[in-house]
């Protein structure tokens, strides 16, 4: 494999990691923009998605089980998200820091529940055989580059979800309401928008997307009670970089984080890359404290 193929391979890997972050962080960013709350149990929605994929594959084995698992995980995680919103988040939504802590409690309980239900060691989800394939470049200056089908599939799903969400937010009446509440809750409410319902819908939509992300993760990693924890901190960093409640901001931030880690790992250990990512984020907010794209200013909060 030559150097340019290796470098471009890393760029591809960066995008593939970025697509995971997009799916994991979108829901966080949307409900954060709307309600200013961070759901620390968001990672457990990924976990739930993984277990739902496992259960779906028990019922629908065969090559297309994983496709059936996507809507199942979306609905399951959205449902749990709705319950969480109604019971915990809504009653605390005026106190963002307390919401953060309470949802951390929820995440502990969900992890332990998964441990008691499915066992601590995790369950088996394997990629269908039609994904066991790589697209290889055999000639030209990219000779030797291998693009695994699984990663192409993940990029595709992320693009589809992004497209669908963008259409929903920009082309539908519901999207209009969401943008209205996002920009000015009081005025939107005065104009007859049921802001309470919008909150609930957007939050469930966000957790549903995380559930789908969980199915995708199951193709690349383990399905265990604590799997959500390994993705949640980078997802938070994406939200900080991305700005409030913006699809474009979250997408750009995910790509930055994905590319940054993939390229820096050429030079340093993965452990050191993690530290440098944090340094990068802190330096970034020196230049652009409001995030990449923002609808409202962050400086005048509180």
């Amino acid at each position, binding site marked *: 494999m030559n150097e340019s193929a290796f470098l471009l391979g890393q760029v591809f890997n960066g995008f593939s990691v970025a697509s995971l972050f997009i799916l994991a962080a979108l829901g966080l960013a949307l409900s954060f923009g709307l309600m200013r*709350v961070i759901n620390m149990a968001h990672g457990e929605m990924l976990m739930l998605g993984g277990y739902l994929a496992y259960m779906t594959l028990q019922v629908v084995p065969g090559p297309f089980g994983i496709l059936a698992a996507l809507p199942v995980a979306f609905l399951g995680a959205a449902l749990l998200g709705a319950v969480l919103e109604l019971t915990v988040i809504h*009653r605390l939504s005026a106190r963002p*820091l307390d919401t953060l802590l309470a949802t951390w409690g929820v995440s502990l309980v969900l992890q*332990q529940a998964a441990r008691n239900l499915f066992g601590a060691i995790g369950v088996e989800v394997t990629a269908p055989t039609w994904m066991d394939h790589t697209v290889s470049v055999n000639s030209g200056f990219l000779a030797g580059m291998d693009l695994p089908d699984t990663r192409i599939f993940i990029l595709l799903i992320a693009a589809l979800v992004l497209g669908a969400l963008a259409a929903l937010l920009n082309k539908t009446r519901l999207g209009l309401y969401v943008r209205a509440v996002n920009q000015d809750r009081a005025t939107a409410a005065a104009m007859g928008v049921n802001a309470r319902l919008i909150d609930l819908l957007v939050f469930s939509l966000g957790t549903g997307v995380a559930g789908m992300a969980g199915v995708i993760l199951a193709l690349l990693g383990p399905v265990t009670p604590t799997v959500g924890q390994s993705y949640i901190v980078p997802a938070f960093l994406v939200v900080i970089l991305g700005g409030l409640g913006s699809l474009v901001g979250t997408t750009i931030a995910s790509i930055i984080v994905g590319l940054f880690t993939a390229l820096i790992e050429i030079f340093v250990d993965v*452990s050191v890359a993690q530290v440098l990512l944090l340094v990068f984020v*802190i330096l970034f907010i020196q230049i652009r404290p409001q995030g990449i794209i923002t609808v*409202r200013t962050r400086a005048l909060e*509180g």
Partner: protein
Amino acid sequence: MKPAPKHVLGGALMLLGVAAPLLINPYELSLLGRFLALCILAMGIMLTWGEAGILSLGQGVFFGLGAYALAMHLKLAGLNLANGDMPDFMVWSGVSALPAFWYPFKNGCFALACVVLVPGGFAAGFSWLVFRRRVGGVYFALITQALALAFSTLLISQQSYTGGFNGLTNFTTLFGQDITTNSAARVIYWVTFILVVLVYFFLRWLLATRYGVMLRATRDGENRVRFLGHDAVPYKVLAFAIAGALAGIGGALFTLHSGVISPAAVGVVPSIEMVVWVAVGGRNILWGAIAGTLLVNFAKDQISSALPSLWLYALGALFILSVSFLPAGIAGLFHAGREENVVRRILRRRKLSTAE
């Protein structure tokens, strides 16, 4: 003048605290000592979170900095550096000579200064970088959590300098004194207890000064403070630096009591557990932070061995219930007036508004 009941109670607790080594066995004393060390850190969380409104999910970092500063000295205490001696883990990691930044820690006074100054200074610099760009609230909480993850990852990966995942352990002497005996344990306990009392009164005094008033004003309306012509940043940075230094002191004392410090004590999960102690005890009341820390830790010690699965449910439920229904914590129950204030504040802010 007749002393008020709370003074009688306070005096009695103080006496009990001093006499504890004579009342309980060495094992119970070591537990109490290590939990009291954590109380010092918890009072710092009360200062930043309760009084300044800054939630940090990364106090484990400052705890770790203090703990490692002392542990590095303890590791070197028995070695003859002129001979080229090195801590054993460095030998196993293939290091050929003691790294330069370890040398000064041979000096006990330098190490003790570092216990306070390194976490305090780092907390000041870090928080200044974030606060000066007016990034706070939830963002700050998330960034500190990422900091906790990065710090523990770095400690583990730099094994040849830090002892890695194993951490630092097997300490024998401090200032020429054997620290493994029961009488040394008593002395360390008394030092811890005295420091808890000193920090308690220091913070009481601090919060009663004009600084304390400004801090609370910043918490309740940072922009209003700014509009009145004050710069809120130094107040917040100072509070965070003090909390960092207190976490460092707590970490150093904890290391003395437990005889080991490792990355497992400084990561994301321990950092957030530290916040639970204060949430349960009461974030706005100093003695609540102490009571919460002791209560949660003793409960963990008792429950986790017998019913480990139950403990995790209990910890999660503690979090949800205490912040949802008891935002002033246990201590809030005893301070009816303050509880009412907190509740009123919450009710007033129940409606989401965009005016903020």
